[in-house]
């Protein structure tokens, strides 16, 4: 049933949504439009004047091996963060749901990482993995591994994936746990009487019933890995070594603010914007409509 508020003053509804619209315009539409404008301009070497170059900035991007490489890195990074984050938190949520229905200590502990600022999370994992004194680094050294994520690109990727995943696990966990607890217990019992063992119950009953949550979280996690891991990467690897952890967002910032290539940076952010819009469309179309049983 639809519940609608009826306003007697014609202007009141507009007045009420005005602040929200103002915020959206000032913090989203205006910078976005600036990025679009900037992406078709090129500045001279001294930043004093700019001139129109059409799609040249974009064309240059797709000829830039570093940019194409950044795409690959982002794809790898977001796939790892999303699958690891979802996998681990699903296991945690299933365990929590089964063993200690509603035990708050467990939940509280698992929620902490979410409250930690990205830069702090980065610093924290930086210590753990710090070549030499870091706990993890020390353990690896004991096993004879030559560990230095400041020099080894693969190791650097490993570290940022761990830090970024760790931060997102709580969020995923909460949604999975809520999703699991919303599944009527009698459904699981009916399946048990029907002869399904726990593993089979998970695949044939629990997971399908969790699918709306799962698809929602996939989109959220991809968006997170794409855009919200800047702080983690900045504090751990700064995109290095040799740009091996330079994801798209990091490159936008680096090219714009460090390399002072505003046009190229703007073009990259326009592409990122297109990706976000794409993901949002997928979320609305696919998830809200199709993934309902």
């Amino acid at each position, binding site marked *: 049933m639809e519940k609608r508020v009826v306003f007697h003053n014609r202007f009141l509804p507009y007045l009420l949504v005005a602040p929200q619209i103002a915020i959206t315009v000032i913090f989203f539409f205006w910078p976005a439009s600036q990025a679009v404008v900037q992406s078709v301009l090129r500045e001279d070497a001294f930043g004093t004047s700019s001139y129109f170059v059409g799609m040249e900035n974009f064309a240059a991007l797709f000829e830039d091996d570093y940019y194409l490489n950044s795409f690959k890195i982002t794809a790898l990074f977001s796939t790892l963060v999303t699958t690891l984050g979802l996998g681990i938190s699903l296991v945690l949520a299933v365990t929590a749901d089964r063993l200690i229905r509603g035990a708050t200590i467990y939940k509280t502990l698992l929620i902490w990482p979410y409250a930690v600022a990205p830069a702090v999370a980065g610093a924290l994992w930086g210590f753990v993995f710090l070549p030499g004194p870091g706990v993890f680094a020390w353990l690896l050294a004991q096993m004879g591994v030559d560990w230095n994520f400041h020099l080894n690109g693969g190791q650097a990727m490993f570290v940022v994936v761990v830090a970024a995943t760790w931060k997102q696990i709580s969020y995923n966990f909460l949604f999975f746990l809520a999703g699991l607890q919303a599944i*009527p217990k*009698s*459904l699981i*019992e*009916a*399946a*048990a*009487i*029907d*002869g*399904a063992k726990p593993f*089979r119950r998970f695949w*044939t*009953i629990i997971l*399908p*019933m969790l*699918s709306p949550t799962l698809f929602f979280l996939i989109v959220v996690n991809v968006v997170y890995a794409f855009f919200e891991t800047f702080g983690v990467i900045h504090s751990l690897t700064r995109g290095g070594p040799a740009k091996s952890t330079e994801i798209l967002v990091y490159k936008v910032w680096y090219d714009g603010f460090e390399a002072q290539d505003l046009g190229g940076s703007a073009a990259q952010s326009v592409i990122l914007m297109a990706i976000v819009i794409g993901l949002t469309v997928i979320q609305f179309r696919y998830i809200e409509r199709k993934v309902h*049983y």
Partner: protein
Amino acid sequence: MAKVTLKGVKKNYGPVKAIHGVDMEIKDGEFIVIVGPSGCGKSTLLRMIAGLEAITDGTIQIGDRVVNNIEPAERDIAMVFQNYALYPHMSVYENMSYGLRIRGRSKADIETRVQRAAEILQLQPYLQRKPRELSGGQRQRVAMGRAIVREPSVFLFDEPLSNLDAKLRVQMRLEIKRLHQQLGVTSVYVTHDQVEAMTLADRLVVMNQGRADQIGSPQDVYNHPATTYVGGFIGSPAMNFLTCRIDTGQAKLTDDVILPLPAGWSVPAGEYSLGIRPENLRIARAGETAHLQLDVDVAEELGADTLLHGKIAGEEMVVRVPSHAGFHDHSRPGLVIDIERLHLFDRESGLRVATPG
């Protein structure tokens, strides 16, 4: 098919004692109804038979096998849940065949069984639908279908009709009865609705706070309630209870209200609770001596009958009289009791007192 035997079955949830020790022998093919108010432990008892709750003490036997430590799947039972517990992402066909698929039956065998069950339950047109596309009654039937395709030895029902509207409930009740006559599978059925219990049961188990107060046929339970609790729970409106002192073959309610007792009752003098069903009283005919005078507070019109609510000797009393008798609020009819149908209970323990005679 199988008999089910419960011996001293107890259940504790931590310090809470939910079931205090139930003994019961369910015969092969029998339809047993466990009835009692909400919270008395009906579901707990049923779920222990199903294997969904651990048994704290005692044994449960299905057939000749003690099943205390046997998984629900291995007990050869099927259960129908109150909320139906249909798998929402599966079609009706998939719901009904899920258990068979897990047990590795052949496609042809599954097809035959599902089609036969669908035919019995008139579900053929809906086999490809999802549960959310069905009405409440149809979902209920799917839940039953899922139970019968497996051809288990025991059916367990936990309030399967309580989510349906009154009319559908009566209809489904009949269908369940018919189904039982057709299949003859041992059934244990839980309900809080005494009408459902009386109409379905071969034998009733009346539960009272974790104990089985009485196990018997509907007639037996109605005519010879073992406790005041059973007397009050079975029958609608509920049995009236009057405290009295019995002496020299008479029941004395107050100094001026004295009732005769059936000839031949031999009970020791003492304090008792006298049970009188509302339908075992009638209006005194002209010239007949009334046993009691009822001060009617409210006359409740039911159509065929009228319920007269009032007081006798300071105690609440309900009487069912034919509507045409024409009594109304604040009238004062004289009543005659069907003395042969009096029930006598011990005042302290509430247990039925044998009245040999």
